[in-house]
């Protein structure tokens, strides 16, 4: 059994808590949140010891692993402190507000040989995993262009400020929606190395961007377009997709559906020349406990397995999250 504590019981923290609560290899030893209403609820019904001060919780509950799901501005100091105490960390995305901080955390975790993971859940979605597999096999030849997109209805009216609207606290579409998409591009096609130019547009928010449009160049030399908008209420919920054009074909994938076009008959098993349409159901395996999507359980299963030494700590580690932080800062620096 792995002793786990959770800091932050907002939307993601509560979701992690529930999945951890149902996990057969996990004992929840503590939850920390500043809202007494939330901790009283958890204490009353779940029976998990609750705290308002994370330092006190770590000292008393002695977790082997901690989930950090607080606003991004607190990540660096909290995660550093936890790593210093020799505890494995799962952090919410993005890792840090500056790439220097993220790099330091990645090095620290590596030096101390602690398991470290960030909640970029797209990598645990079956369709995107299949895209990675196809690209690895060079199934569509050499990629020469990509378009990575995410749209959804988060900020759809003008309203008063919350932490989401403060860039110093990790607010804005770039750190939120766009980070998922950049991380997916980094994973599928290679890390972003240069940003040609970017447009950060506000639509309803006053102090932060609601959309991000950017021209990215990757380490491999491949270039493409990033287009993200969290003020688009023609979508019911966040919808992320990637289109990759290659010399031998084309891939269009979102979290539900994968469409692949092959120009020639020479294609991987299970595919044929022309268009192929596959769905999540063709790839996604069942999880033991389901909440909001298989990927949320899968990423936690993977982390707990890594802590137990059953799998290598290679997916979504701090190093890959730092590469995403780095790309985010390049986009910000090139914004017109």
């Amino acid at each position, binding site marked *: 059994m792995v002793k786990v504590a959770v800091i932050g*019981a*907002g*939307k993601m923290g*509560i*979701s992690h*808590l*529930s*999945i*951890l*609560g*149902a996990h057969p290899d996990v004992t929840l030893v503590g939850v920390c949140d500043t*809202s*007494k*209403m*939330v901790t*009283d*609820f*958890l204490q*009353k*019904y*779940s*029976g998990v010891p609750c705290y308002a001060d994370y330092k006190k919780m770590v000292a008393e509950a002695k977790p082997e692993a901690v989930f950090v799901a607080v606003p991004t501005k607190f990540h660096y100091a909290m995660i550093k402190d936890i790593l210093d105490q020799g505890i494995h960390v799962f952090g919410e995305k993005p890792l840090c507000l500056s790439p220097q901080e993220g790099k330091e955390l990645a090095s620290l975790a590596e030096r101390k040989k602690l398991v470290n993971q960030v909640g970029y859940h797209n990598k645990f979605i079956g369709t995107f995993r299949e895209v990675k597999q196809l690209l690895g096999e060079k199934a569509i030849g050499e990629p020469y262009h990509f378009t990575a997109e995410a749209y959804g*209805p*988060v900020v759809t009216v003008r309203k008063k400020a*919350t932490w*989401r609207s403060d860039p110093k606290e990790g607010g804005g579409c770039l750190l939120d929606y766009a980070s998922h998409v950049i991380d997916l591009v980094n994973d599928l096609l290679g890390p972003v190395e240069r940003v040609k130019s970017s447009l950060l547009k506000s639509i309803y928010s006053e102090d932060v961007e609601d959309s991000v449009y950017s021209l990215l160049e990757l380490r491999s030399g491949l270039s493409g377009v990033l287009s993200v908008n969290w003020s688009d209420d*023609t979508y*019911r*919920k966040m*919808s992320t*997709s990637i289109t990759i054009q290659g010399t031998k074909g084309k891939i269009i994938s*979102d979290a*539900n*559906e994968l469409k692949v076009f092959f120009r020639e008959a020479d294609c991987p098993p299970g595919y044929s020349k022309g268009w192929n349409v596959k*769905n*999540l*159901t*063709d790839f996604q395996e*069942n*999880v*033991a*406990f*389901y*909440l*909001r999507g298989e990927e949320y359980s899968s990423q936690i299963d993977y982390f707990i397995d890594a802590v137990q030494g059953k799998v290598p700590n290679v997916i979504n580690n701090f190093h890959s999250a730092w590469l995403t932080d780095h790309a985010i800062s390049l986009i910000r620096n090139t914004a017109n």
Partner: protein
Amino acid sequence: MDRILFGDNQFFAVNHISDEKSRAQAIKFKTDQAIMKVLDDALDCGVSTFMCTTHDRIAGVCQAVLADPARYEGFKIYPCMPYAHKYANAVTELGVAGALKQYVPGNFFGSLFKGGMAYISKDYESIMELMIDAEMKMFKGIDTPVIFLQNVITDLLIGLRATEILVAFHTYIRKKYDAEAGFITMNMPRLVQLLTEAGVSNPIVCASINKAGFRMSGGREVYEETLRSKKFRAIAMQVLGGGAIPPKEAIEYVCGLPNIESILFGASSRGNIENTVSYIHHYDKLKAHGADRPVYV
């Protein structure tokens, strides 16, 4: 409960396998009339129970039903609450307390705040009751014999081990609405176990049940064993496995299972409704008349 229940996913751009189809549905069902046309088709095919989320647009459906009592005699709605995206977005933005403050009606929550946190901490169940009342407002005058808790909330509470809240939902629905409580879940075996242990007898549980094992947490075998051995009223949803199973095969499997009281499906066209309904009748008849016929499990 009726054998066949009609769902609402297609009306609100919920499609588990294609964003493109979602968009096409959002366009097709832009007007309330378009929704009513399909509900009328379902009714003509003998399906008179509509199971739907507490989406804002359901208010339009309720008004249409109330406006023509002759046409909709015997028509029932099973509300499924809450419409989770509304709350999820609010929680991300405002925190749990802020979101509650926004959605719990009236001055109750404000006066609780003024009264101090100690009082609130003892009164989560009252807050839940107020939220149920708020969600149920649009159904006034409509026959709602079963009221469901949505899977995001049911499953969240399962993981948090807050079974008492599930039981409180069950109790309040009976007391206030003279209706039965139902639970939608993606973790059916676990939920049935928890409710049984908590003393809820013969609960109504709606879950993904399909030949492909899609969204059947822990695997198809555990679900089949639960259906065989536990006392509860099962509703099978996502019977097509997100589109992975041909309709005929999908219905044959579900109809062959023991203890499935109802089958929930959604469709956008009269043809598809007719097909699915006729498959269900066909395989039900086979099961009833042919004890020697192969039955799944």
